[in-house]
């Protein structure tokens, strides 16, 4: 097991300023600091903070970063990769933040140990191991933060399930959005039926403007829902049938005869109002 010597740590501490300058130059060369999502001042603050932590936390004879000495550095890196994950940066740019410090450090060691090449190799190895460990730590945290983001988005998608809205007395509308052939559809349709019972609505409009594809499974869901709505004594209107969807339904051979369909929601509402005995007129 190779370990950092006091001499290496001293030379790092002594050259903090030049290391920082070289590191920033290196970050710039690899394009890490040119990403618009991370401001230059932010990167400068981060590099300065990391250099300070590295110089003060490094102990002779120690390359493991799991100890107490490194807890401050670990917290800093966790915060860094978390903020980058949230900003939507990839793991590569996050990891290269640490890895681009390698060259300046190696150059420094090379100059320091120029006359003792036998001592150089173990020290380069030790520094490399240390930076690898720190880099891996950022990637691990990055991954974890990303997974948290994905988990949150999945929950948000479930929350997104379309609401049943009341358009008028006795008229409900269900604006469907996205994929209509999932489990979610079943849930949404059931909630529509439930709302019909609760409100005693006479007409339910299912709007499929936001549904990109209507295939046989989607049609089957729609047909079943319309049948269920009728069994409950209400009427159903399907609106938002765009020209390309209409042509596709014809070719598929789906029989929608007996189901009232409209090209848009406005047409459906107009019909619904007429059926419930309302007339809309312009006020003078």
């Amino acid at each position: 097991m190779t370990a950092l010597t006091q001499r290496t740590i001293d030379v790092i501490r002594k050259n903090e300023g030049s290391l920082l300058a070289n590191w920033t130059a290196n970050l710039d060369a690899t394009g890490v600091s040119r990403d618009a999502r991370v401001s230059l001042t932010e990167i400068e603050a981060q590099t300065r903070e990391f250099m300070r932590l590295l110089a003060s936390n490094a102990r002779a004879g120690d390359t493991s970063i799991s100890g107490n000495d490194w807890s401050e550095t670990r917290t800093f890196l966790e915060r860094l990769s978390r903020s980058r994950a949230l900003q939507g940066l990839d793991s590569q740019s996050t990891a290269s933040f640490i890895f681009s410090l390698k060259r300046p450090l190696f150059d420094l060691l090379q100059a320091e140990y120029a006359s003792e090449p036998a001592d150089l190799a173990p020290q380069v190895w030790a520094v490399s191991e240390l930076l690898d460990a720190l880099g891996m730590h950022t990637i691990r945290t990055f991954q974890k933060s990303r997974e948290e983001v994905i988990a949150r988005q999945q929950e948000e998608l479930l929350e997104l399930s379309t609401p049943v809205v009341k358009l008028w007395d006795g008229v409900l509308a269900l604006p469907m959005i996205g994929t209509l052939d999932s489990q979610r559809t079943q849930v949404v349709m059931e909630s529509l039926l439930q709302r019909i019972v609760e409100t005693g609505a006479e007409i339910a409009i299912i709007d499929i403007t936001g549904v990109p594809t209507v295939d046989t499974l989607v049609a089957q869901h729609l047909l079943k829902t319309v049948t269920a709505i009728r069994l409950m004594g209400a009427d159903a209107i399907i609106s938002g049938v765009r020209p390309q969807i209409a042509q596709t339904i014809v070719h598929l051979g789906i029989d929608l005869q007996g189901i009232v369909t409209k090209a848009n929601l406005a047409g459906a509402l107009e019909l619904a109002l007429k059926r419930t005995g309302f007339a809309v007129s312009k006020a003078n």
Partner: protein
Amino acid sequence: MDGSQPISIEQDVVLARQTVRRLAIECGLRLVDQTKLITAASELARNTVIYGGGGHMDWEFVEEGTRRGLRLVFRDEGPGIADMKLAMTDGWTSGGGLGLGLTGAKRLVDEFSLESTPGVGTRVTICKWN
């Protein structure tokens, strides 16, 4: 073939539709033809999952003279179709669907071919020209 993607679970049907949408736009198909091809692909991809137990969708751009087209192949190693004539009958289904998937898909595209060997698998090839 220009590309391929697996179709193993229900969610893959959605991904297959998105891929076909992207390819159809790239191919220069009109909106109506895009929608027809996507719908046909949706039917066949779902068949691959439900009846074939999962498989793949391959695609390639084809050219003939001045016209361009998109060819899609849906293949699985499932139980296969025992009675092809019955399978190509409107309204017949071995599952719980409307029984219009295969025949409907055929009507939505310009070229359609169905090969199936019981115990070996099924392969459906469709093509839409612009």
